[in-house]
């Protein structure tokens, strides 16, 4: 009944640093459940992150954890995976870390289809630095650097991942905890680049500036704005206005995985 998260968490690390109502803790729980479901040997698991609130996640987990520089998680993780393909490699981070400064590494890791699972917590803001807008802050919304409303158009992270070549792309939200671990499990089990975007809550810097009176309001909007892919198929464009799709958005099991491809290079080099 009560889930034993504590066996996956380094002793003495709780309570964690995330703000009251921040969704990252919920995602971390989902990741722990997924790693347990996949029976990942934590000695053989690298959890890599960049910089930002979401990127503090690896520090809490008892595994080979690598808290890198802002935006560079996917590139560090590529080095880990290439050097030791037998390791399970999980990347995590936020929307700013992953798609702004980290965008180039994100799209190239997707392009390579290297076997890793990227859990991208999209809370629409740079939380750690106090609430600046990110490439995913909805247009028109407020942030500490868009006091007149965000003029920027934004990324659809999942489309970006699909367009770049990732072969398992899914989305869920912090208000759908069971789906978090289900999708991360499938991502881990998928051989290739798996991107799981979790629409997340930042009540402290995003919620406050965008008319969300409370943490609960933010969680409730995740429930109302999320539309499972299957349900969306039967809905009209108007009905889908302001919504986003959740579940598995794209999966390709044909595209070769990068380390497998490089194993062929080694065979040729040693055979020749």
């Amino acid at each position: 009944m009560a889930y034993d998260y504590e066996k996956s968490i380094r002793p003495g690390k709780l309570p964690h640093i995330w703000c009251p109502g921040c969704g990252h803790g919920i995602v971390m729980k989902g990741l722990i459940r997924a790693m347990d479901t996949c029976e990942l040997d934590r000695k053989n698991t690298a959890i890599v992150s960049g910089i930002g609130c979401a990127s503090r996640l690896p520090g809490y987990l008892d595994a080979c954890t690598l808290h890198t520089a802002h935006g560079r998680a996917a590139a560090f993780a590529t080095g880990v995976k290439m050097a030791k393909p037998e390791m399970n490699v999980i990347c995590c981070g936020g929307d700013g870390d992953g798609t702004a400064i980290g965008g180039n590494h994100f799209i190239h890791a997707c392009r390579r289809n290297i076997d890793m699972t990227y859990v991208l917590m999209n809370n629409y803001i740079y939380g750690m630095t106090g609430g600046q807008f990110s490439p995913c802050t909805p247009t028109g919304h407020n942030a500490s650097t868009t006091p007149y409303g965000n003029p920027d158009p934004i990324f659809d992270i999942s489309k970006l991942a699909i367009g770049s070549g990732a072969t398992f792309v899914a989305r869920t939200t912090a208000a759908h905890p069971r789906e978090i671990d289900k999708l991360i499990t499938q991502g881990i089990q998928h051989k290739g680049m798996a991107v799981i975007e979790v629409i997340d809550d930042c009540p402290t810097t995003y919620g406050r500036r965008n008319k969300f009176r409370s943490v609960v309001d933010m969680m409730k909007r995740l429930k109302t704005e999320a539309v499972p892919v299957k349900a969306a198929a039967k809905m009209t464009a108007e009905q889908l206005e302001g919504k986003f799709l959740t579940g598995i958005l794209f999966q390709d099991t044909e595209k070769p995985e990068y380390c497998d491809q490089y194993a062929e290079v080694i065979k040729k080099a040693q055979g020749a």
Partner: protein
Amino acid sequence: MAKKVALLQGNEACAQGAVYAGAKFFGGYPITPSTEVAEVLSVELPKVGGKFIQMEDEIAAMASVIGASLTGAKSITATSGPGVSLKQELIGYACIAEVPCVIINVMRGGPSTGMPTGPGQSDVMQAMWGTHGDHAAIALVPDSCQEIFTETVRAFNLAEKYRMPVQVLFDEIVGHMRERIEFPEPGELEVIDREAPSVGPDDYKPYDSTKGQIPPLADFGSEYKYHVTGLNKADDGFPTTKASLVDAEERRQIDKVMDNIADIESNEEYMTEDAEVIIWAFGSTSRSARYAVNELRKEGIKAGMFRPITLWPFPAKRTAELADQAKAIVVAEMNLGQMVYEVERVAQGNCVVVHEGRVDGDPINPGQIMDKVKEVL
């Protein structure tokens, strides 16, 4: 058994040196004039079960090298000035996280795009002060294809032994010219491998320096689980802002190099015993300096050459001694004055220190060195 000999380009000698040292990972990005290092390693590494990857930019290349090194693979990247500029933040990361890796900088004319196919030595201060924050640095400056081979091996040894990034800088001339190389036999050159942790996984702390300045680094994917971060951290690898710990760790990471200069330094001296003027030069410039010494000697001028092979940590002791001995030191370097300031600092006025430089894309020639020597004597 006759030694295997080959006519090798400097960049290729670097790649061969890396393989000899046991490199198992290269993460790079194409850039003139260093690309041949990558090309050769893309051929050689998979032969020995190593991995080559061309990343999306130099930052990614540096990141992949650090990631790979953490799994236990000896890792290297090669680039030129612009690439080293891009890698600076992560070079600092490798310093604070103490991750062994080798960075090759085949220097070209700078700044910015500069002269990609021209030589330069204007990245030498960058090798020490390029990234933000206080940190140690080791930089080696070979002057021949043979020495590129041996210094690349030494760079890996120093990186593994001192658990940090080590840079090897040679300019485009040395990188692109071809010279006769004698391949050392396996075992002939010392190759240092990473020291395994002395405690079991449950007691392991990645930065526990109670047993020595340089804590052993366990491999990701072995029996050890631990945390790595770029934040100031305590001995267990977790972030701390505790003043005493932050201060102690910063100083340890510098002292581990500065306390071991004798082990790291490497210089060549040519006819300095009775020299009244020292030409202080490295890399390809030292070839002109050596020629100038010979010519000056013919003209009865007691000249000598001091050639650092380890540029950082700076060879302060020997430079100071030569400053006491000589009337003047001429620092010849393909820039508008960089190492000259270190020489001046160390000479403390005990002799005249002048600079002979050049940034027009041509190498410094013996004649201009000789003119400067005569001018200053």
